[in-house]
């Protein structure tokens, strides 16, 4: 029987009292590991949302707002820029490609992106990874729609299905552009970005569906009022072949790729100075970082909070060990009588503490994988958060390391108490 076995026997003899301690340590460690995993994955998917785009231009607004609006589709796309400005931007020297996007419509609560076919060529995510098709192809003509991976999965669409787009965002929109149904022409592979939750239609159709709706509304109004005082011009008589050439008057934003990234600041300044229409040009990479910095004190607080929960449970363990120590005086005396040196007593108590923490760590890792294997589909579906179920990340291992280190440090206290105790009481019979 070596010291490791002795510690094992000692621990297993006190299972019932230790089980709560082990539970509390492993649950707080589980909390810590989970928060760290979610933090990493949010950061990862956040930073990977867009790459390869050098500039994003939209109507004058804050840079974070423009990014959230155009890429994350958070917030309302109230501000638009004119097609004329877009054409002007295209002509700026040094610009390699431009992709206009128009937002504001939805399908069953999912956002619709009006864009050009170039979007599928130039929009890059993660490490300059291009979008790829799981089924079908990019749209080539009017009334075709390309679905993000989640859209197809969530709503059970396949290539060839028809769907109707609503005006405005959100599920409760009353205007359905029923006269202008779209046929699913392609479904994208999952990207882990907001692209997965979008429906992509030709940008010219955005204008078209709006006009159709208005035309539809007008027929209702005919009996009351014959005025044609709408601001809209009445393109709804055009047939679809013509409509494809229709240019939208307003767009939400433009994604821009430059011939050289060195030009970014210069062109940004030039666009921001545009005096015809107030515009904002942002560097998406930089803005992503800025937004993350807003979030980072929050994520640090979360980690610190869960770390303190862990420390509290470790202290709980410490209290338990110190408490049982006085009941174990006789046991330690027996060990001394058979020749155990005081340092052996010290090591034994340390080892027991270490065992408790190691068991807790194993329990927490097991629960962690169990939990995330079960929860990953739900997190993906509800929060579009892809949890990476690979082995623990370096930072998670670090947290486990910190836990071990802290518990060893804390274990010194009861171990030293026991050490002192066996020295002072000797082989007394009491």
């Amino acid at each position, binding site marked *: 029987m070596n010291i490791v076995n002795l510690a094992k026997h000692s621990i297993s003899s006190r299972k019932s009292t230790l089980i709560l301690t082990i539970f509390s340590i492993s649950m707080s460690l589980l909390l810590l590991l989970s928060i760290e995993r979610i933090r990493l994955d949010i950061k990862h998917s956040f930073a990977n949302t867009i790459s390869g785009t050098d500039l994003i231009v939209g109507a004058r607004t804050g840079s974070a707002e423009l990014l959230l609006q155009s890429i994350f589709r958070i917030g309302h796309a109230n501000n638009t820029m004119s097609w004329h400005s877009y054409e002007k931007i295209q002509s700026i020297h040094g610009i390699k490609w431009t992709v206009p996007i128009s937002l504001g419509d939805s399908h069953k609560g999912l956002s619709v992106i009006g864009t050009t076919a170039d979007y599928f060529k130039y929009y890059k995510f993660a490490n300059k990874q291009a979008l790829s098709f799981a089924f079908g192809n990019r749209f080539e003509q009017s009334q075709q729609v390309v679905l993000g991976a989640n859209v197809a999965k969530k709503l059970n669409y396949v290539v060839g299905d028809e769907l109707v787009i609503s005006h405005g965002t959100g599920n409760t929109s009353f205007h359905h552009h029923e006269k202008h149904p779209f046929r699913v022409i392609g479904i994208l592979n999952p990207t882990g970005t907001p692209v997965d939750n979008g429906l992509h239609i030709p940008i010219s159709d955005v204008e078209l569906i709006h006009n159709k709706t208005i035309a539809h509304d007008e027929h209702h109004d005919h009996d009351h009022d014959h005025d044609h005082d709408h601001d809209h011009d009445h393109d709804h008589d055009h047939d679809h072949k013509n409509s494809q050439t229709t240019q939208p008057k307003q767009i939400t934003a433009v994604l821009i790729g430059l011939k050289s990234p060195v030009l970014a600041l210069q062109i940004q300044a030039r666009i921001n100075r545009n005096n015809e229409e107030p515009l904002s040009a942002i560097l998406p990479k930089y803005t992503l970082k800025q937004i993350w910095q807003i979030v980072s004190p929050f994520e640090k607080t979360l980690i610190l909070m869960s770390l303190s929960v862990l420390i509290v449970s470790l202290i709980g363990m410490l209290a338990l060990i110190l408490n049982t120590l006085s009941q174990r005086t*006789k*046991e330690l005396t027996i060990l001394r*009588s058979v*020749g155990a040196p005081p340092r052996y007593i010290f090591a034994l108590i340390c080892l027991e503490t270490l065992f408790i923490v190691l068991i807790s760590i194993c329990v927490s890792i097991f629960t962690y994988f169990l939990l995330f294997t079960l929860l990953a589909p739900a997190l993906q579906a509800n929060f579009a958060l892809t949890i990476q179920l690979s082995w623990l990340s370096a930072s998670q291992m670090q947290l486990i390391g910190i836990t071990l280190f802290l518990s060893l440090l804390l274990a010194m206290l009861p171990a030293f108490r026991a050490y002192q105790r066996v020295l002072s009481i000797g082989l007394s019979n009491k």
Partner: protein
Amino acid sequence: MLSLNQLRFQYPNQLRPIIDISSLTLAKGENLFLHGQSGSGKSTLLNLVSGVLSPDSGSIILLETDLGVLSQSKKDAFRANHIGFIFQNFNLIPYLNAEQNTLLGCHFSKSRKNKAIAKYGNLSHAAHAILASLGLSESIVKQAVHTLSIGQQQRVAIARALIGEPELIIADEPTSALDENAKKEFIQLLFNQTTKSQASLLFVSHDTSLKSEFSSQVALCDINVGAQ
């Protein structure tokens, strides 16, 4: 085998020495009954003899080794090799079974381990054989010790003290938890075993009714000037 000379020991917070013994000897194979009331300094004396405490002056010679010249860890090793302890009660580690408790006796001593292996083939056999010779049946050996009676527990304690045949057995009030019949039986078992292994026995008790069983008797209050 054991001799104490001009032994003095004083606790730092006390005014006079608790131990002041000019001479005490124990021969090989001798059974010595050391009578001591509580407060007579017997615990302190046992701690000195077993090397847990160091005397302020004087010498403790055990097996021709002066304990005073040994370092603390050497004293621990020396105790492991040459002394078997039996306490009053709660003699056993609660989370080990009878066999494991017995083997604890040679856990810290290579020489006792080797002696046990040489005699019985392996450690498990040694433990079983000694427990059997103390009248403990095979079924008890693997049982959790808290399921054993006090008498059985004390026999396991004898087995632990005797495994690997240490030269000195120190029994500190080992019978006080036992009834009259069990006391006599316990002492006989102990004598049998120490005779077999030719060990010396230092039996400390306040119970003078046991005195007559021993070949020699000493009252601690007679030899310890400190406690007077």
